[in-house]
């Protein structure tokens, strides 16, 4: 949305956005300051797109769905991992610092190399699960059970927030372990033994040290920390547990 809302009239005061900039071949990174008009409904993504359109067309950033469902617009805003499309700019103060996610190599500006996120997942992940919502509903004839997309939107915020990932690039990270735990909770034809073997690794479930930042950062209620703990419980007892993570 353009910060100059035609319904309200002219735009409100402007804020200073300090935006991380890096192009391949540059000697290093820098922060570029931009004065951006911000209204009560302006999101960080709106502001960054305003910069692209009106100040600097070379600013590169990822976005797609505008409603925190695709997971592409993850970045650090004032040091916190967020999805820019649902983060309001107004409450963030007079200077807003925008950087790419941590612990993942930067491709350019606010874009990180997502292949490093996806390579950590076990091979068997699927994105469709049973829908646990509206349990009293009966599906129509021909449909066994209602299904829905998994909560994990592969945004990488958890990987950026994890203090262990800050010191170890070999750690598979919270999203991958949470996805593995989901496969234990709902196998969908996958062999649970394979998943347990995959997770039972010093750089797998055992590398986590219970900081819980991943759950704090997750914008999609995956609760990766709790799932990692449940996964460790399964590994410790040699049994696959029932879903041990209570909904928030």
């Amino acid at each position, binding site marked *: 949305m353009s910060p100059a809302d035609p319904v309200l009239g002219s735009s409100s005061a402007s804020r200073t956005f300090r935006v991380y900039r890096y192009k391949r071949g540059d000697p290093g990174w820098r922060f570029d300051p931009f004065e951006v008009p911000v209204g009560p409904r302006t999101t960080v993504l709106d502001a960054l797109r305003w910069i692209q359109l009106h100040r600097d067309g070379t600013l590169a950033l990822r976005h797609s769905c505008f409603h925190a469902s695709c997971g592409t617009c993850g970045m650090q805003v004032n040091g916190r991992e967020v999805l820019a499309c649902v983060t309001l700019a107004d409450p963030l103060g007079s200077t807003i610092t925008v950087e790419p996610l941590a612990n993942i190599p930067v491709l350019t500006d606010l874009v990180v*190399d997502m292949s490093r996120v996806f390579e950590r997942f076990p091979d068997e992940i699927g994105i469709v699960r049973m829908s646990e919502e509206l349990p009293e509903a009966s599906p129509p004839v021909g449909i066994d059970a209602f299904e829905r997309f998994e909560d994990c939107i592969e945004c990488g915020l958890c990987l950026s927030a994890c203090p262990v990932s800050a010191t170890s690039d070999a750690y598979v990270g919270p999203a991958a372990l949470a996805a593995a735990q989901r496969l234990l909770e709902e196998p969908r034809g996958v062999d649970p033994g394979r998943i347990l073997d995959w997770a039972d690794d010093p750089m797998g479930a055992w590398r986590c040290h219970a900081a819980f930042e991943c759950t704090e950062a997750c914008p999609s209620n995956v609760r990766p920390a709790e799932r990692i703990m*449940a996964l460790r419980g399964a590994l410790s007892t040699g049994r696959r547990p029932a879903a041990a993570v209570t909904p928030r």
Partner: protein
Amino acid sequence: MSGRDLPDLERRDDDGPVLRKGVGIPTSGWFDPRGRALGSFAFAVNRVTGLGLVAYLYLHLAVLSMLLRGESAWSGFLRLATDWVFLSLDVLLIFGILYHGLNGIRVALVGSGIVPDRQKALWWALGVIGTIALAFSAFHIYGSR
């Protein structure tokens, strides 16, 4: 129109910089408070108290070695040991033991999947127990003067 072929395409495959929390030293990210929540705080204090306890162990052995040097050396130490600064350090030590131990119980309960999703509640509950125990200890330590 540029009139020349697009250069530098191979640069797209190079490695890029990696942002890390903290101040450039790898583990400093553990102590960067920006945007952090309770779990990180517990994680960080656990590491500090762990190092502190290791340091204390060394000091403790060094102190005990004074016993080998005879009564006057030990008596000198005892005078120091009843000084209120020293007693305060004892209280700090008790804090370190209680924190590291009780948080360790929390991490064990959560990390083994016994209570995977109650980490904040456990922190506060064990924190209450630890605070009471610390107050009790401090009362007796200072009261021993």
